[in-house]
């Protein structure tokens, strides 16, 4: 990889937080227990809050402070709380079941990261934010979450993958253009919250119908 593809982030703190986020995405991909997954999701929320704060300080963008506050409230406190309660109510303790084994998924994840960095190079050239080198990180985290949705079998992990994708999008937006307009951010946060509620309701329904959360019960294959 040529050096130009990796812009050194202006603030070492932002860079550190970005790599921590990427690491946490890999951790989600590798994690085998459901409770730990939710904990990593909360950790991602903390990393996101911190990086938003540091970008806000470095770029002197006051509205990003509000974004950081919302992130803290929604993604660190409210959503993990809801998810934990969900796991408790549904008595989910067991292991995460995978369609593709973890080492193979990790290798695929490596390729995804390389691809994301190569892809984001021209965008980083164009962006004029202090943390433009981290756009690739955001994209990589997004695709890794997607990869997690593909390779997991249980419905709850799909939801966590979906929430992880939203985190990554938020991170990319912060680094590419100092975040989306406030209205959009509020709207997205609210959507995610409502989405979680809806998923929760669905999970209860699914369990009552199929006695299981395995995705294969939701497959539409009459021949099987």
């Amino acid at each position, binding site marked *: 990889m040529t050096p130009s593809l990796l812009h050194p982030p202006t603030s070492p703190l932002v860079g550190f937080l970005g790599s921590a986020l990427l690491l946490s995405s890999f951790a989600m991909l590798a994690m085998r227990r459901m409770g730990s997954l939710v904990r990593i999701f909360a950790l991602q929320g903390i990393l996101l809050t911190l990086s938003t704060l540091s970008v806000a300080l470095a770029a002197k963008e006051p509205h990003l402070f509000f974004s950081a506050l919302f992130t803290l409230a929604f993604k660190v406190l409210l959503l993990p709380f809801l998810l934990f309660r969900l796991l408790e109510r549904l008595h989910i303790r067991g292991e995460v079941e995978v369609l593709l084994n973890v080492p193979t998924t990790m290798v695929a994840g490596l390729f995804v990261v390389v691809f994301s960095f190569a892809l984001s190079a021209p965008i980083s050239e164009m962006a004029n934010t202090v943390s433009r080198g981290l756009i690739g990180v955001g994209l990589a985290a997004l695709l890794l979450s997607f990869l997690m949705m593909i390779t997991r079998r249980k419905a709850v992990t799909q939801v966590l993958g979906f929430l992880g994708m939203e985190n990554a999008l938020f991170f990319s937006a912060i680094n590419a253009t100092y975040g989306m307009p406030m209205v959009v951010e509020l709207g997205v946060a609210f959507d995610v919250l409502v989405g979680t509620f809806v998923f929760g309701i669905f999970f209860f329904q699914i369990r009552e119908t199929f006695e299981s959360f395995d995705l294969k019960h939701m497959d539409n*294959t009459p021949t099987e």
Partner: protein
Amino acid sequence: MTSLSATPLFFSLSTLLALLVTGLAGAWLLTRRPTFATPIFLLLSLETLALTFSGLRGLLAGSDIRLVLPGGIPDLFIHLRQDPLASFFLLLLGGASTGVLLFSAGYTKDMATKRVAELLSRTTLFLFFTGGVFLADDAYSFMVFWEVMAVASFFLILSGDKTPEVRRAGYLTLLLAHGGSLLILASFALLSIRETPSSIVSLSSFSFEALSQSHLSPKGALLASLLFLLGFGAKAGLLPLHVWLPLAHPAAPTPASALLSGVMLKAAIYGLIRALFELVGLHQLASSFGILLMVTGAFMALFGILHAILQSAPKALLAYSSLENIGIILLGTGLGILYLKTGHPLPGTLALSAALFHALNHAFFKSLLFLGAGTMIHATGETNLNRMGGLLRHMPRSGTLVLLGVLSISGIPPTNGFASEWLLLQATLQARDLSGTIQRSSVLFGAAILVLASALAAMAFLKFFGVGYLGLPRSEGAKAAHECSLLEMLGMGWLALGSLLLGLLPGLVLKEVVKVVSPLTATSLTVPPEAYGWAWLLPLPPAGPSSSPLLLLALVGILTLPVFWLYWGTRRGKMRSAPPWGCGYRELSGRSQASAESFAQPIRHFFPVFFSMKRHLPTPEDPDPVFDLSVEDPHWPLLYRPLFRLFIALAEAAERVRSGRISVYLIYSFTTLIILLSVLRWH
């Protein structure tokens, strides 16, 4: 400039709006007061009469008024314009629909209230949006009016019997209409391309005035005109996109079939002429396109009339004959383009005028004939000519009106059908001025087909009238036939009167039609419209052949009336009725007459290429001999059914992608995302 409220455009607009309001409010009122059907239809016919006069006024004054109304979306205005071409087609719309609505006032008497309300609201919607098509002056509102007109025509068809065949005909119509709309849209897009692309596309650049400023390469212009031809052709029944027409027009209730055939096909012709001459522009049209249009039209005329002769259901016969007439109109349009592009403005204007004249004539006599077919079906309860017969005895007055329509459509002088076809023939005979061999021979080929098609049309309508109205009744229903109501007759009478006037005063009509055509051709015409006299039809003034239907009628009258008078004067009171000689049979029944099929047998025999026939001839040893014959449009087995099979095979192949597993679907989106991103980055 006079005040806006005095212009024909304002008058047309308010009439159309009044029509819409009356129709929709009337449909609502009907559900409460079922007896109001007749007055509502009468009121509607008055409004269409006003529309007729608005069109006539605009045409006589030669007014060309534009109006821009604010639309629903910012920066997107509704451009309206009533120029002579629009006035001419408004006149056509109003004239034909006045008769049809008058007829409906009587026709709907025995129908269930719900069906009447359905027919009423759909008819007015159809009329309003067709009027909008004629008035629209930008691509956006044109498409809106055009599409709603297509949907309204779909619902008009569905307001017939609720059978699977009717539904199938309706869906086929809708499918082809929407396919055509897409092509029209594509052509509009092609015309809106400019050499200097501006980043902000102003929506006002889609007004017809802006679109007509296009500079296309010769290939681009040809593509645009072909797209317009196919797009509008899908709604006009252009071969091979015509398959919906013979299914849909007979399926609709009688007033609706009359409107679909009399008005909607003309809307497509209007669109084609507007698009070719104004939007693409004569300067960008190719003479080869004119030849293509002419040859297609000629083939269509022949194909349509041959199939018309073979039909045994009166409405199906009329529907196929519409194909013939549209073919004649397209032939005239193509001929006009060819002449104008090769520098012969006089015959070119004549050919185009003849095409428009024929469109007006067809609107009147075809609506009349469809209404007549409706009365035949209603009076006998039969839908096949083989179960009718002898109707003239029971329905002398409506039968006479139908006879007028039959004479007109067969092109018997001095009717209007003769006038327009004769004009077109005169235009084809100017082919000696053309230089190219291909051009000259294709025009003469067109002329020959035109004459053949007119002769065959006379045969088809001889069958229509002869088998249906003359001879002995062929079924119990035909024996018990009854005359139609006064209002129905009034509606048919209006249309017959229109046909008659158009036929007797063709010089006056030609003078006005030339005024419509001249702005379109944008070539300096050496002859002013005033040169066309009123009593004499003089296609190529100052010299050349001429015809005077009034004089002809007077001459025929002078020669025949004394004989007629003498005959009746001497024979009064001495009439006696006696059984005719029955060729040795003990009694003559309806079954001993020539049937509808036997009329068509020679045609089937001489032109086998035009039909796809399945015939089962029983052998002498067959213990249960049944003669069986089915004739089909060859487009079904050769084009449409293979096409349907191909689509189904493709759909089944695509079905394999659909595994039904969520993970697989997620992989699809993941892969698509990766591929799209890669393309974006390294394209």
